[in-house]
């Protein structure tokens, strides 16, 4: 197992390097002169030159990348062109806002998805199953930013939980202190994710229920309930684990949308604002941070998958 973890860690390194190369090239792939773009149209020759100097754009690309990587490893992602503050400071507390949002959404998605998927599998081909699967298909096909808007609308019109709508007044203060503020965005993201997990759980359960060892359990005289929850579920959950990391990542990336509609001051909104103002160092910073978290979470998921699924160990 330790061997596996080490091997997996080593495998992650080239991916992380690839990510930094890609993020680094963002600035250089922009059509035109990056310094000019950063400076904005109509900036004086001198300003452009200063920016070029400050961003080190005069040096060769490999040197620039080397410095970018070196700084990034030490937690220095450069400075915002607009505010002049270090990108790390800009991200600051917004980091946790986004990670928390993704985390709670994942929990909701897993919780709802598993229940729905198991019910669906256990009662397959019944009305319950069909209804759950139709709802899940809709969940999968719905733009979650639209669903979020609908939720806001319903809750506002129904005048239900008015406090939860306070954040609509665009307070740029992250979560504030009210847990209620997190409910709608988490519901928005979580239900979409639940749809995926429900479908996956169902098909995984149905596949497991057809396995020989389930028949063995039945031949032992075990009750259907124990067959389902002790013998089938544990096996069925193994492949589902792999989606959890992807979901978490999807929520991190989806934060750009969710945080926009719910006016949450996290990394997603920071990214969007930076894109609008062409503040590329900030865009690079947030994209890099989000991707690195995602890679690390997937690493964790992979390792726990191995722990759960001991059979792979042999190969």
């Amino acid at each position, binding site marked *: 197992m330790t061997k596996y973890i080490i091997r997996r860690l080593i495998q992650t390194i*080239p*991916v*992380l390097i*690839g*990510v930094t*190369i*890609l*993020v680094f090239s*963002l600035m250089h*792939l*922009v*059509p035109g002169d990056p310094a000019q773009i950063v400076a904005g149209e109509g900036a004086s020759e001198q300003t452009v030159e200063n920016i070029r100097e400050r961003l080190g754009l005069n040096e060769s690309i490999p040197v620039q990348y080397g410095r970018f990587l070196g700084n990034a490893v030490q937690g220095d992602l450069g400075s915002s062109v607009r505010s002049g503050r270090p990108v790390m400071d800009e991200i600051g507390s917004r980091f946790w806002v986004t990670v928390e949002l993704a985390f709670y959404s994942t929990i909701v998605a897993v919780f709802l998805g598993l229940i729905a998927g198991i019910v669906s599998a256990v009662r*397959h*081909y019944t009305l319950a199953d069909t209804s759950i699967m139709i709802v899940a*298909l*809709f969940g*999968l*096909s*719905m*733009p979650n*930013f*639209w*669903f979020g*808007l*609908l939720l*806001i*609308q319903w809750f*506002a*019109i129904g005048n239900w939980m008015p406090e939860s709508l306070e954040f609509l007044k665009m307070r740029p203060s992250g979560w504030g202190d009210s847990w209620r503020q997190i409910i709608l965005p988490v519901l928005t993201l979580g239900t979409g994710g639940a749809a995926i997990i429900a479908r996956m759980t*169902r*098909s995984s359960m*149905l596949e497991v*229920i*057809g396995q020989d060892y389930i028949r063995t359990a039945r031949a032992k005289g075990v009750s259907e309930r124990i067959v389902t929850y002790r013998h089938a579920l544990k096996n069925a959950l193994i492949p589902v684990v792999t989606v959890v990391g*992807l979901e978490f*990542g*999807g*929520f*991190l*990336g*989806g934060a*750009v*949308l969710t945080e*926009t*509609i719910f006016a949450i001051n996290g990394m997603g909104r920071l*990214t*969007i604002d930076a*894109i*609008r103002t062409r503040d*590329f160092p900030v*865009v690079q910073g947030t*994209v890099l941070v*989000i*991707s690195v978290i*995602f*890679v690390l979470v997937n690493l964790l998921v992979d390792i726990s998958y191995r722990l759960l699924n001991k059979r792979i160990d042999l190969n």
Partner: protein
Amino acid sequence: MSEETVNPPVTAQKINPRIESYKQFWRRLLKNKAAVIGGLLIVFVVLMAFIGPWIITTFTDYRPNQTDLTNKLQGPSASNWFGTDSFGRDIFTRLIFGAKLTLYVGFLSVFIGGIIGVIFGIISGYYGGRVDAVIMRLMDVLLAFPGILLALAIVAVLGGSLTNVIIAVGIFSVPAFARVVRGSTLSVRKLEYVDAVRALGASDFRIIFKHILPNIMSPIIVQASLRIATAILTGAGLSFLGLGAQPPAPEWGAMLNEGRQYMFEAGHVALFPGLMIVLVVLAFNIFGDGVRDALDPKMKNR
């Protein structure tokens, strides 16, 4: 009486399994309700996108960008089925005209991503070794940007426009295709008949195009269908963020974004574009599910 199976000698007569499966493919597809319903829905949406605008311009006076400030933010009525937006434009007309844009994003981006992904996947699966390792690591890097983020970063660099959204979403779709195709190529390559045609001296190029590609069409079709659904959602998301189609284009995501500001006084402005997106994405998802069930009976629920 235990049966002993002796491997038959490898001959050129080993049948390419695709030949029989075309008929079977259609039969199974037509037997699958989900695939048929999804397929019909897609046909409906395509007709709506390409004939709808012509019908409207020919037979009515509605135009997608015709403003009427005296009649803005009106709810659904007999003259404006889906109501009007903040410029008094008819939402129904705009949605019909915008369908094309949504389908462009879906089809073109998946086409671009599919072609690149399939090429990568086949090379990776067929040649294996170092090429495989490099390509797959590259795909891992692309997959390291979760969800919409990769497309977002690309659009951020290229600038906001529908064309750039198509390119970005296309690149975003590459790894999914590459992985699926690589897996399928690996399993087809192991089949005996591929050995047989290789033994006959067929070139790699010929083997790939004549023998491998036709046999991995099913997973590609499934992937494409499901991927179009994702692509449409992603594209709409980017336009919603103001990074895609620019006003006054009647792109659905952009319309949603406009409607968002009037959420409380005129909910319908954001409601209908969203419903349209759901309809189209649903069509591709249902179709993709159905095709997968039809093509892979093993996966079909017992």
